Each structure stands twice: as C-alpha cells, then as structure tokens.
C-alpha cells in the first residue's frame, strides 16, 4: 500500500510556489504544504515531520534544514538527497535545476523519483523563465542607453537619427566592442561634461 507522501515546499514567492505544487500534483496524489515564512523553518518542518522537503538551492534557508539531518531519531530524519548515491544522475539533474531535496531515510527510491522528476522539470522551467526575463530586461536597458547615446550624437553633431546610429555602430566595430558598451561610455562621458 502506498500511502500519500507528505511533502513540504519552501518557497516565498507565491507564483513559484503554485507552479511547483501544480507540478507535484501531476506526479501523484500527495499531501503538499508550502512554507513561505522562513523564520523558525527547521522547527516548523520537524513539527510536520514530512517525507520530503523541496527547496530552491539558491535559498539561504537551506542551511537551517541541514540541522534537521542531525536530529536524533535516525528513522525519521530527512537526509540531504545527495547523500543517497543510489541515483547519481537524479542528484546531478537536481543540482543543475537548482532544486535541493531532503528525503526521509529509508523511503524507497521508486516512490521519490516521480516526485523529484516533476520538481526538477518545474525548476528547469522556472530557471528558463528567469533567464528570459533577465535577458528581456537587459535588452530593454541596452535599448535605452543606445537611444540616449544617439540623442547625444545627434545634438553634438547636428545630424539625423540614422546617421548618429551609423556612427555609433562604426565606432563599436572599429573598437571591437559591443554597441551598448560604446553607448554607455558615451553617456557616462557626457554626464561628466555636463
């Protein structure tokens, strides 16, 4: 008989928490609890005594969970997933996806694997979204700087927009630098000369 697994997800961000929980539900009918407040984390987790704890590897609160792995009752204590070397590939995948798992000792691997696979998939997705968001932000920032630099060149030389852009591009190519870098240098220099 497979009883339901009791899973705790530590995640402050509500949207991310929802994504992870949805992913876990697809993996099976489990009892999932999200803890958002990280103060007293170890105490809250040990009160609940879950089978599995999932936490973003980038979350500094992971260190508080480590403490639970030293608890005195060996059968109930969660162990860091990488302790279980039975599935090295799964461990590697988890680390790459940025998810850390703490699993109660003795829980069989075939019960944990579907849950972890689902968690890993969600974390990958979130990582991808995070990278895309950062890319978009960076592109926007660069666009803004280039526009400002263009304006400076237009005013200084009394030329049109296309011509100013062509000048900046040429300067970047001649110096072997990125357009955004040259634009940033120009904007910084112009600030100084104000």
């Amino acid at each position, binding site marked *: 008989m497979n009883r339901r697994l009791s899973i705790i997800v530590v995640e402050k961000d509500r949207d991310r928490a929802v994504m992870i929980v949805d992913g876990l539900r697809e993996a099976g009918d489990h009892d999932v609890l999200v803890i958002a407040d990280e*103060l007293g984390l*170890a105490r809250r987790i040990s009160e609940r005594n879950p089978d599995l704890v999932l936490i973003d590897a980038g979350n500094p609160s992971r260190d*508080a969970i*480590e*403490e639970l792995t*030293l608890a005195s009752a060996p059968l109930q204590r969660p162990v860091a997933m990488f302790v279980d070397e039975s599935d090295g590939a799964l*461990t590697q995948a988890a680390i790459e996806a940025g998810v*850390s798992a703490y699993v109660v000792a003795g829980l069989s691997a075939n019960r944990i694997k579907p849950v972890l696979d689902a968690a890993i998939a969600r974390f990958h997705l979130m990582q991808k979204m995070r990278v895309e968001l950062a890319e978009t932000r960076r592109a926007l920032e660069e666009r803004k700087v280039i526009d400002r630099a263009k304006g400076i060149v237009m005013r200084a030389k009394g030329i049109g927009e296309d011509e100013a852009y062509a000048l900046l591009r040429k300067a970047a190519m001649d110096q072997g630098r990125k357009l955004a870098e040259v634009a940033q240098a120009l904007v910084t220099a112009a600030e100084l000369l104000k």
Partner: protein
Amino acid sequence: MTVTLRLGFVPLVDAAPLIVAEAMGFAEEEGLALDLVGAPSWSSLRDLLAVGQVAGAQMLAPVPVALALGLGGPARFEVLSVLNLNGNAIGVSTALAARMQDHDFALSDARAAGLSLLAAVEQRLRIGVPFAFSMHNELVRYWLEGLGVPLPQGLEIVTVPPPLMPDALATGEVDAFCVGEPRGSVAVDRGAGVLLLPTSAIWAAAPEKVLAVRAGWAEADPDLAGRLIRAIWRAGRWLGQAANLTVAGEVLAARLGVSAELIERSLTGRLVIAADGAERFAPAFLRFDGGAAGFPWRSQAAWIGARLGRRHGLNPLGAQVIAAEVFRSDIYRLHLGPAGADLPAASAKVEGSLLLPTPVASSRGKLILPPDQFYDAQVFDPGLAG
C-alpha cells in the same frame, strides 16, 4: 598557459584571500584565472564542491572535519590552508542588551560577558549560528560551557541563515547570534542587535575558514594545487599589511555588495557595537597573516574533531585522530617551503598554551607564533607527535 579554476565562496569578509588573489593579480602571477562563484549557503557550497562544479572552496573549518567523521554527507574534503583566524562576533538583541546594564561591552572579557548574558536571560536563550558545523557553533558552546555556572534550561543553538539574522532578532525568533562579518555589523547598523564579544576573546587563534578541495584533488594535480596554494598565501600576506586595508576594503565592497566602511571595521578591528555608533577596538579580530596564520595545524583539526565527536556520540580520541588527517599540513609544506614561507618545524601544537607571542623552531628561523589562549586557560594537547 593560463588555467581557469572555479572556486566557490560565500560573500563574507573572510572570503578575502580568494577575492584578493583574483583581483590583485596573485592568481595571474601563478598562471591562474580564478572564476569565483558566490554560493547562497554553506550546504549548497558543500554540494557544489562535492559534485565537482567548483575545484576548491572557502569552507567553514569544521565542515571537512565533520564529513571525515561521517557527519553531514558522503563527500570527503581536504584542507589545503587556513584562510583566516578568528573574525566572528557574538551579539545580543537590543532587548537583551538593555537588561545587561551592568556590563561594559568592552569586547575583551569573555567570562564577564558570558556571566552578564546569563544573568540577563529570563527563561529562554536561543542563539542563532550560520551552520551546524561551524566555529560559530563550537565557540559559542565552548564559551557557555566553560563559564562554570548552570546553563539556562531554555538554551538552544539553532541555525539561522545570516541574511535573516536581523529579522530573527527583531521578531524574537532568536535572542543572540554569532556571525561572521559583515553580517554582525549589518545587524548593528539595522538596529537589530548589539555586539557583545568577538570570538577571538574565546579562543585567541581559532581557525575559521579554510581552503577546501575534494580529497585526492591536490595530489592528483600537484602543479595546479601548488599554484592555487601559493596564490592564496600571497593574497593573505598582502591582506596582512595595514597599508593595504583601504584598497582591500574597496575590492571586497565591490564583491560583497556592502560599503567599504562596513568592511573596514572588521579588517581593522575597530567595531561599531551598537546603532548609536559606540566603537570598540578588538585586537586580532580577524587575521589573514603573520605567525603561520595560514598553516593548517593538525592540532586545530583535532580540536574540532574532539568536540564534534563528543557531541555526536563518537569516540572523541578516535575522532580527533581522523580529524587531524583532514588538515593537510604536508601538502602545505610541499608547496610553500620552496616559495619561501617560514614553516613551523612541527605540524601540531598544544593549542591554548601561548599567552604571549612566542618564537618557535621554523624553516627560516624567524617564526613567532601569536598568543592562542582559550579564555578559560584550558589547553588542548592532541598528543600528535610532530
């Protein structure tokens, strides 16, 4: 041929030898390009090193010892050098500080500070430390146990990630803390706590962070290991020069994301202890160099092993023998002897026996070890020959 080496660190002032080795050209001198990877927690840094995503890492001195004793995971690490001695501070919540009016907060007398703290505790004393296996944890326990008075029933030492420490103090989750810099100063500036004692007042020369690699790594590629150890050693020597501290503060500020002023407090030992700006000088608050500071003494590891062994139900003597093997003073000698370091003749010492700077036998004959006493005048003799 420049070789790129990925090293992990936690953004703290005592990551300085790694950061300086990269920023000030000591790595480059050895043909190394250091790719420094900041880690959000000690457990994640341990995992990064264990799975080989970084070649070496700044590590809490007790972590490699604990792993060797089978505590905290299956990885096996070795310590190539000690990055710094001391550098942590114990602080109390403002509420607790207000109940310690009799105490002068001079930062020098561990016994007086401890007795005053215990007298101010009402029922519970919950102290936050960054990690279960840390000198923070060991020194706080050593300090309280050595006071010779009954400890409060409600004494608990819990892990609180240092970025959360100010909130944990403000909400009463913890009553006191022991953290590395700049975390203590940040807590002070936020008005969350008052500094009570530098850990150097508990043990005057405690190993704090170490340079750790996977077991066997240094011997598999001795040339690379030698270059890394020398670059870090030269960075430590540079950090030991008072004239360099302003530059060091700037270099670290850029990496750690706090102001250079905050960092200089720990580099100079001139600590601001409370939000009202009260200042105290703590000599040898944080040491990177001088008196073989970087030498991985087997006796330091043995001390940690004996403490961990006792607390986790292992044979303390056996634990200290296993622990001593983890600090690779032999590898340190191999690479720094030819580089001109003044190496001690012995690899273990009786910890706590030096009350004054003391000349000892060394390879170049000029080594003076700094005081290393414990506040309670105990000594630790690991019984390791040589």
